[in-house]
């Protein structure tokens, strides 16, 4: 937000590529070999530059216009000393000869330049803001859409904190570069070029000396860039650990308090905070050194040029006005040096951020939308359920390791299937394949004969809906949250769904009933109640196939019964896959699958399996005992 013309003798850097730091922090420096853990997603070489180009490409014309405006604005601003020189060397002698013409021309010229400088300044800032805001809008949208398109598999490994910081702090650091940095750079280059050209035109010798003084200045800038880069990297690591510690403490405040960690945390935090303080001080000192160095070079050059110029005026080889103008320009020539340091700062932090964003955008969704979507065949019977077939399906993560070896499985329409097995047996993976959170490595998952990969999202979600253990509530009202199941649902339909699952009573008791904002005063909703809301959502969605993945873990027994009752009534006839630690679910199942090490080891009707001697019989016995 600095004017291009501003001269800043000792301008503090609004330095601090802090947004980048935050990004770094949220990513959490992790000592592991995985690219995900280190937060360095692979991106093709040059992706950062390509990203920036592709963002700017649609507004080439406007970027050109903006630069042109700046060019004109600088011309208007830099004309001042030239007019001073003309006034002293020509207008004054003319005036002595009673010729007012040149002076009037000078006055009119100066007035014109001032107005032009101001007007162009306005036009430039407004135009630059448009470019910068449009780029940011585009980039924010791209990150958001891309993140939404990426598979659950990706989200499980790329922590939420990183994704949030990609679209907030990293975008913010690009904004700083666009708003201030680029403007600085263009201004600095323009005024260097303009002033150097003017000086050369005024007097070739003086100009040449001025241009020669750029050599040591350039060396200084490079030196600063190298040294500051090192310090900034250290500082960004330091602030990262401060932030991680801070966030962790605040998010875990209950255990912190209950286990009296306050003093120990204070001590840990002090160490991290102090490390940041040191590097922060180092960074500020680095800047101080740069300022001293560049000022020394600049002021020495000014003294030298003035000395030589004065000699030549004395010789009569240089006009006095030219020397005056040259001196005025010289001071301006060196003013932008400090700001170059500023630009380098914002550039470094933006480049780091863009690299991370480019890495994110380079991830290809492993569960892409079909290019030519198909529709599900119309329901054959009066039953709303559909048949599910796992056709030679196998699954392994891209990082390797087969989770589900090849298997065949058919779930007839309308069947309720319980999947049991110990942690890591592959139950959730099976569910996620069916919900198309993942695609199988080989084989197909068919819904009434149609490959899930050929269904467009709305069609897929009319077919399959999955309720998971984590019952996240979005900000908004309780009714909004239930309506996620079917956005066009009426209030009556929403209430009916809530009643069917036994959530109506507690919702009605909230301060504003269904219109209670879940994030506001009085909106405390317990873990069990959240799961009920999640179920109401699923009821409202009314899918052909319903998957419940540990969706009842926080419910009490009446809650669980209500869910089972709803499945027996409202959801009757749907195909259902139920995963639960609690075997009570099994009572409503038509069929039980027991999984172990990614394989289905038992498959049959519950009574049949209980009567047998297999794993399920064991499990069931243990469970019955636990009920006492």
């Amino acid at each position, binding site marked *: 937000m600095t004017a291009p013309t501003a001269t800043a003798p*000792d301008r503090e850097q609004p330095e601090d590529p802090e947004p980048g730091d935050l990004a770094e922090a949220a990513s959490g420096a992790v000592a592991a070999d995985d690219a995900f853990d280190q937060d360095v997603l692979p991106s093709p070489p040059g992706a950062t530059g390509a990203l920036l180009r592709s963002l700017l490409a649609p507004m080439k014309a406007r970027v050109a216009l903006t630069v042109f405006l700046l060019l004109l604005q600088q011309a208007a601003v830099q004309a001042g000393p030239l007019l001073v020189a003309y006034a*002293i060397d020509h207008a*004054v002698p003319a005036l002595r000869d009673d010729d007012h013409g040149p002076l009037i021309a000078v006055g009119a010229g100066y007035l014109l330049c001032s107005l032009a400088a101001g007007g162009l300044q306005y036009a430039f800032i*407004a135009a630059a803001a448009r470019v910068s805001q449009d780029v940011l809008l585009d980039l924010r949208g791209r990150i*958001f859409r891309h993140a939404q398109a990426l598979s659950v598999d990706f989200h499980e490994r790329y922590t939420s904190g990183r994704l949030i910081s990609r679209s907030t702090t990293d975008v913010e650091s690009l904004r700083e570069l666009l708003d201030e940095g680029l403007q600085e750079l263009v201004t600095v280059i323009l005024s260097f070029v303009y002033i150097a050209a003017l000086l050369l035109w005024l007097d070739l010798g003086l100009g040449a000396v001025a241009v020669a003084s750029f050599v040591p200045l350039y060396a200084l800038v490079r030196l600063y860039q190298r040294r500051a880069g090192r310090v900034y990297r250290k500082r960004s690591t330091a602030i990262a650990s401060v932030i991680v510690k801070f*966030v962790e403490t605040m998010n875990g405040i209950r255990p912190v308090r209950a286990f009296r960690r306050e003093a120990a945390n204070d001590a840990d935090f002090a160490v991290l905070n102090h490390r940041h303080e040191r590097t922060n001080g180092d960074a*500020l000192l680095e800047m101080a050194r740069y*300022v001293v160095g560049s000022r020394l070079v600049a*002021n020495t050059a000014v003294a030298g040029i003035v000395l030589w110029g004065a000699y030549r005026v004395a010789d009569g080889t240089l006009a006095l006005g030219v020397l005056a103008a040259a001196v005025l320009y010289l001071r301006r020539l060196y003013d932008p040096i400090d700001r170059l340091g500023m630009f380098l700062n914002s550039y470094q932090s933006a480049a780091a951020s863009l690299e991370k964003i480019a890495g994110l955008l380079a991830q290809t969704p492993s569960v892409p939308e079909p290019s030519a979507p198909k529709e599900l065949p119309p329901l054959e019977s009066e039953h709303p359920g559909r048949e599910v077939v796992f056709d030679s399906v196998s699954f392994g993560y891209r990082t390797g390791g087969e989770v589900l070896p090849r298997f065949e499985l058919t779930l007839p329409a309308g069947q309720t299937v319980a999947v049991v097995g110990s942690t890591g047996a592959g139950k959730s993976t099976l569910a996620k394949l069916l919900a198309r959170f993942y695609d199988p490595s080989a084989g197909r998952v068919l819904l009434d004969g149609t490959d899930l990969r050929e269904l467009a999202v709305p069609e897929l979600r009319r077919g399959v809906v999955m309720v998971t253990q984590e019952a*996240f509530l979005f900000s908004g009202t309780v009714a909004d949250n239930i309506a996620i199941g079917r956005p066009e649902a009426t209030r009556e339909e929403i209430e009916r769904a809530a009643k069917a699952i036994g959530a109506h009573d507690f919702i009605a008791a909230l301060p504003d009933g269904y219109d209670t904002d879940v994030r506001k005063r009085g909106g405390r909703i317990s873990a069990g109640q959240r799961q009920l809301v999640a179920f109401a959502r699923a009821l409202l969605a009314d899918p052909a196939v319903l998957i419940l993945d540990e969706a009842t873990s926080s419910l009490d027994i009446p809650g669980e019964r209500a869910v089972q009752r709803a499945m027996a009534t409202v959801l009757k006839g749907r195909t259902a896959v139920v995963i639960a630690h609690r075997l009570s679910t099994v009572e409503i199942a038509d069929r039980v699958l027991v999984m172990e090490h990614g394989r289905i080891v038992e498959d049959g009707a519950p009574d049949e399996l209980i009567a047998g001697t297999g794993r399920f019989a064991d499990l069931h016995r243990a469970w019955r005992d636990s009920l006492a």
Partner: protein
Amino acid sequence: MPTKPAPATDLAPDTVPDTAETRSTVRALLRLWPYVRPVRTRLGAAAVIAILASCVGLVIPLVLKWMVDGPVADRDPAGVWLGALYLLLLGLAEALLFGFRRWLVARPLAGVEAGMRADLYRHLQRLPVAFHDRWASGQLLSRGTTDLMLLRMFLAFPLTFLLVNGVTILVGVGIMLVQDWTLGLVILGPAIPVMITCGIFEKKYSAVARRAQDQVGDLTTVVEESVLGIRIIKGFGRHRSQARAFHELSHTLRGTELRKARLLAAIWAVIVTLPEVAIGAALVVGAVQVADGALSAGTLVAFLSTALALRWPVESIGFLLAMSQEAATATDRYFEVMDAEVEADPAAGSRAAGAMGVPPLERSREWGRVGAAAPSSEQRAVPEVGTNAVELQGLRFEHVLFRYPDAAPDSPPLLTDVDLHIRSGESMALVGATGSGKTTLTALVPRLHEVTEGRITLDGEDITALSREELRSMVAVAFEEPTLFSATVGENVLMGAGAGAGEEELDRALAVAQADFAHALPEGTGTQVGEQGLSLSGGQRQRLALARAVVGRPRFLVLDDPLSALDVHTEAAVEAALRQVLADTTALIVAHRPSTVLLADRVALLSEGRIAAVGTHHELLRTSPEYAHLMSGLDKPGDAEGPQERDGR
């Protein structure tokens, strides 16, 4: 799910006062004084040096004038050399003074920032849990990072340079007036219009800037939720509507940002144009005077270069004020948190310090025996102090009434009148319908929340008479949501124990919680877990949290549904081991399942804000229809239909 853009309101809680309106910028910034005080000498010295440096900058044109009018006009080589030498020396002085200023303040200001951050962190750790319930951690974080950074920049730059530039402008104007007062007055002409414009701008800009901040907050919320709720969005195929909400919000933000930019552009246009016009006028008037011989050419050059040198200080005032405004907002935001009251502790600490002399385990064993021998009649009346020692032992809730501090004062309390006595060494299960306040009740014991009315006593001592430190050393808790910190498994578990605890206690606790998997981790109990380490499953985390609760062999144990994420086999094993621990300990266990209830000696049923019944599991199954309903899922009498019940026994 915000299918329509949320209103642009600050995400911070409702307690946030209307700061922009009610407090002046200066008054807000004055609150920084205690932090600035320790570095005031250096800061003051830096300001003086900056003024000196600026004045040196102003003297340079005077030397030029002297050279042009003197040695150059007189063709005096020695004079030219002398002038150049002066220029060089002044240049060196300027550079070194600026460097010196930065050097003076670099470390102290980094120190001020760090000090404020440490204070914020310390303060936040001691604020009531109710405070943290209302404030998103992101809001707190931004206060601890960006806001403090803004403040440091304010101290380093606007604070000094508002002064320096003010003085520079005054001195510069003085120099110009002395050189030629008519030209000086011409230059001063635009001062007043510029100031008025700045004033108007200031108000408008701060309003728009605040709106933009709030909109960024809303946008961040959508991003955050769409990431945290990704499974729901994907599960219901709602990413289009989420993207639409995001699109609308980001468009609104763009509009606000553009408005902000236009305001800024306008003020710059004014600040650039008016002084420039004045300089042009001075040039014309000056040229006429030079032609008349009333003014030397050297004076005109010096005058104009002084005027040009002043351009930056004048132009900078606008953005210096904007930065100060932002710093004032940042200060307000910082003190919003710092002004929140920390939980006060009673001065009394000596009493319990004596009690702490006995190792907790022995004490609890001793009391466990006493408790076991105690008569089992249910006491409802509050006993007279000192009448019956046994009655005082253990954990008592006496007429406890609780309403969340942020709930409306006339709203019905969540807990209306809880009376419960858990005898020493006894374990009590707490059962109640979803949302009946079980978790809230457990949070009252370690004083994560304060009772609104009534009291809770531990062995006869009111918990509000103990310092929280002592209280929490006596009571260990395992929460429903098991949180592990970024530390090793061992450190996470041993957090629950005193300083002296080591391998032996760790192994025992891991064994009790069936968390022996910890030994099989890549680096055993030294494996890093938490946000920055190995991610463990819900069941594994729950078992470690349980180990943490039992490792210190606490006298009082509070477990909130500790086994919900465990599979049947593990649950059974944990239960068996827990029974050993619970034999010595006074425990309150929130339970959803009969299996967990059976860990306890007795059960209390929480219903409609009070304890509706107390007894053994089997007693209550017989006598309390509500309890039977909760434990078996059997419909309450009167409900006709319902699935066949098989597991009630």
